[in-house]
């Protein structure tokens, strides 16, 4: 059983077994058949030979028997001495008596066959005996007996010996052949087996089995290698997909985190917004009560009006910021570009902020560029950015601080820096401060209002101008620095532009204001009248038609959402009417999206202002001159 298991474990052993077994069986079968054939041949020829000998002796000895001459008979028998294997011979008379005898040795033994008339033979052990009658004239006159060695056993032994030698030689040869076969057949198989094992152990599908031949094993090797390539391809595809899945997962997790953070920021922003919008209402109400109660106390009324203006401005600024945030998030924030002077923008920003900075007790140092520098951009937005940054510095610097506002040319760029010696920014917060709704000081007892959108808005605006806004700080308590870099542009002719704008401001215009918000219309009408313009106000679209026809205004500011006749239809009617066909029409609406602007342009409007409309915006329209 052990041997069977040993052989079953290996192809080469099986091959060896096949070759050896085949050789052994073939040789055994051949040897056996040859042995039987040889023994038969030996037997037949020996019997025939001895019978022939006996016949000759019988023929020759017939006269000796007939004429009773034993001497001649003996001489005849003695001729057999040439045959070594013939041991004994005798001639018998017809009556069975020995007529003549012969013995190769001194040995004399009992004859194996009785004298007789028939030809016969007998084999006994290693002896063979034949009897042959002596016939004369048709009758037996005696018989010849020959006994010889029958060497079948010796022959068998010799034969077996030869067979064993041949078998040993053949088996050795077969062994050599099987070893050669093993090399030719099992080496490629072993190669495949080894590669398969290595692939399983190392998980390396780039391994390939070596091909030794073009036979079936070669085909097997090819198929195996093809299979490996297929497996390798699939494994790689699986790995790739796993990796991309992993990557996707990471991205999703990051996005989820960002979403959560944005959500949290939005919540914070909403809380801040409510707080910031609520804050000005109390002083406003108080001032309003003062106005009612003060009567003719001019000083108290003036003080109350100042409070109301300050608080309202604060609210307007908040809502403006809010609108800008909405534009940023919807991607609708746009700028109008023109050549503007850097120092003018800076001056405008300083004008906006100087009151607040003074109030905080800071010292502002402004350094304008050495020469006149211009940039391509929106002067309102750029001054908004600078004002934002100045406000920011003022807010985050303890009272009595130092603020520097510096512009200079570096190469082809204009670098504007706003720096302070305030509370500074922690290094880990630096990248965060430009995020929407981020406030460095989120503690409840913070002293300064804000929605946390100023820096994000500023950065976005500067980027829209093709510039950069970066923040630097030495750390907490080390102050901070904001640097705006913008591309310089060629400056326009300053003298012509100044002359052109001059007469526009002084001219008196006929202005029609149409809005269902009576407070807004009447307050704006008072302001414009104070500025020297003729103003007519109407509170609905239908009556506006009649007023316009009669008044024939140069400028008309129309609300869009009105009962009866809306702003778009009113504009179309006015354009159709000869008295107002050349009138400058401005839409005043709460909707500031592109599609709203598109709608108003289609209706015949020249300008589109978004509520709340400040006096400055209306003055800008008036300064732009009549319709071309």
């Amino acid at each position, binding site marked *: 059983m052990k041997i069977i298991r040993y052989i079953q474990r290996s192809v080469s052993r099986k091959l060896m077994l096949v070759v050896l077994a085949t050789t052994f069986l073939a040789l055994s079968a051949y040897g056996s058949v040859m042995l039987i054939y040889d023994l038969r041949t030996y037997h037949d020829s020996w019997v025939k030979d001895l019978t022939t000998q006996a016949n000759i002796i019988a023929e020759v000895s017939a*006269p*000796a028997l007939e004429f009773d001459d034993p001497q001649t008979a003996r001489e005849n028998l003695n001729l057999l001495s040439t045959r070594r294997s013939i041991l004994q011979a005798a001639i018998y008379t017809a009556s069975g008596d020995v007529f003549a005898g012969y013995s190769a040795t001194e040995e004399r033994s009992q004859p194996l066959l009785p004298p007789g008339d028939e030809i016969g033979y007998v084999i006994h052990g290693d002896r063979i005996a034949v009897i042959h009658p002596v016939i004369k004239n048709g009758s037996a006159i005696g018989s010849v007996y020959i006994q010889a060695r029958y060497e079948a056993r010796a022959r068998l032994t010799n034969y077996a010996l030869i067979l064993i030698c041949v078998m040993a030689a053949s088996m050795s040869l077969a062994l050599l052949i099987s070893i050669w076969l093993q090399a030719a057949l099992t080496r490629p198989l072993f190669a495949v087996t080894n590669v398969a094992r290595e692939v399983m152990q190392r998980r390396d599908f780039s391994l390939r089995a070596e091909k030794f031949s073009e036979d079936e094993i070669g085909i097997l090797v090819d198929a195996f290698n093809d299979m490996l390539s297929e497996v390798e391809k699939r494994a790689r595809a699986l790995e790739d997909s796993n990796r991309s899945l992993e990557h996707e997962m990471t991205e999703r997790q990051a996005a989820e985190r960002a979403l959560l953070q944005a959500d949290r920021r939005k919540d914070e922003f909403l809380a801040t917004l409510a707080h910031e919008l609520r804050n000005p209402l109390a002083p406003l109400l108080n001032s309003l009560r003062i106005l009612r109660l003060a009567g003719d106390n001019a000083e108290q009324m003036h003080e109350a009006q100042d409070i109301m203006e300050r608080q309202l401005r604060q609210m307007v600024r908040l809502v403006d910021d809010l609108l800008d945030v909405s534009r940023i998030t919807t991607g609708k924030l746009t700028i109008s570009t023109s050549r503007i002077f850097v120092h003018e923008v800076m001056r405008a920003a300083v004008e906006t902020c100087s009151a607040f900075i003074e109030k905080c007790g800071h010292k502002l140092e402004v350094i304008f560029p050495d020469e006149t520098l211009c940039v391509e951009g929106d002067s309102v937005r750029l001054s908004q950015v600078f004002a934002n940054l100045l406000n920011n510095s003022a807010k985050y610097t303890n009272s009595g601080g130092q603020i520097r506002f510096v512009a200079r040319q570096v190469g082809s760029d204009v670098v504007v820096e706003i720096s302070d010696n305030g509370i500074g920014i922690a290094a880990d917060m630096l990248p965060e401060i430009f995020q929407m709704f981020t406030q460095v000081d989120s503690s409840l007892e913070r002293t300064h209002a804000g929605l946390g959108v100023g820096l994000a808005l500023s950065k976005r605006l500067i980027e829209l101008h093709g510039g950069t806004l970066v923040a630097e700080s030495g750390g907490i308590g080390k102050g901070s620095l904001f640097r705006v870099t913008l591309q310089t542009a060629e400056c326009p002719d300053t003298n012509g532009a100044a002359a052109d704008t001059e007469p526009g401001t002084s001219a008196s215009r006929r202005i029609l204001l149409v809005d269902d918000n009576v407070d807004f219309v009447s307050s704006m009408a008072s302001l414009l009248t104070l500025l020297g313009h003729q103003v007519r106000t109407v509170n609905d679209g239908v009556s506006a038609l009649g007023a316009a026809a009669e008044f024939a205004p140069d400028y008309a500011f129309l609300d869009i959402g009105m009962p009866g006749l809306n702003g778009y239809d009113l504009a179309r009617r006015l354009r159709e009417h000869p008295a107002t066909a050349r009138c400058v029409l401005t839409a005043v609406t709460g909707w500031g999206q592109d599609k709203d602007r598109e709608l108003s342009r289609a209706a015949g409007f020249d300008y589109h202002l978004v509520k709340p409309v400040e006096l400055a915006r209306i003055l800008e329209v008036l300064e732009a001159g009549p319709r071309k």
Partner: protein
Amino acid sequence: MGAVIRTTHPRSRWLQWLTWLPLLACFSFAVVAQGVSDINLERQIKAAMLYKFLGYVEWPAEAFATPASPYVIAVAGASDVAAELRHLTQDRTINERPIVVQKVTSKSDLSRIHLLFIGDEYNDTLHNRLIRRAREHSMVTVTEIDRGLNIGSVINFRIIDDRIGFDISLANANAHKVKLSARLLGVASYVETGGP
């Protein structure tokens, strides 16, 4: 081969003696008989030999009239031999020929004879005459005298060491135009080739 071992039972010893008795009687009778018939035996053997000689001799074709013609053995004198031959050859053939035995004298016709035996009771003169006459025919002459071959006989019987042997003269055989088988010469005591 193996020796035969006879076991003898002690109780049957006297029985063995009883069985030996008739054997002894037979033996003594045989000895007496041999002594009486010694002469007869010699004549019988010679008769048998004469008969057997026919098988070893070749005659010319004209010696026989037909393929079935008999061998003719003539006996001169020696009537006991002739009687024995007649007895011996009765109903026997050699080479599918029957055998005829006839008595002849010195004056008989010898023309149809194949084998002539002259008994030793014939004197020299008779011998010479018969042989001289026989020389004209194709036949084998057989004598039983010492100088048989010299007087022209083909075969001559002799007693050698109590055995009956014979001498052959090839020259005489040639003279008689008969051929003797070499096998016959092989068992002859002496063969006279007739050469120098």
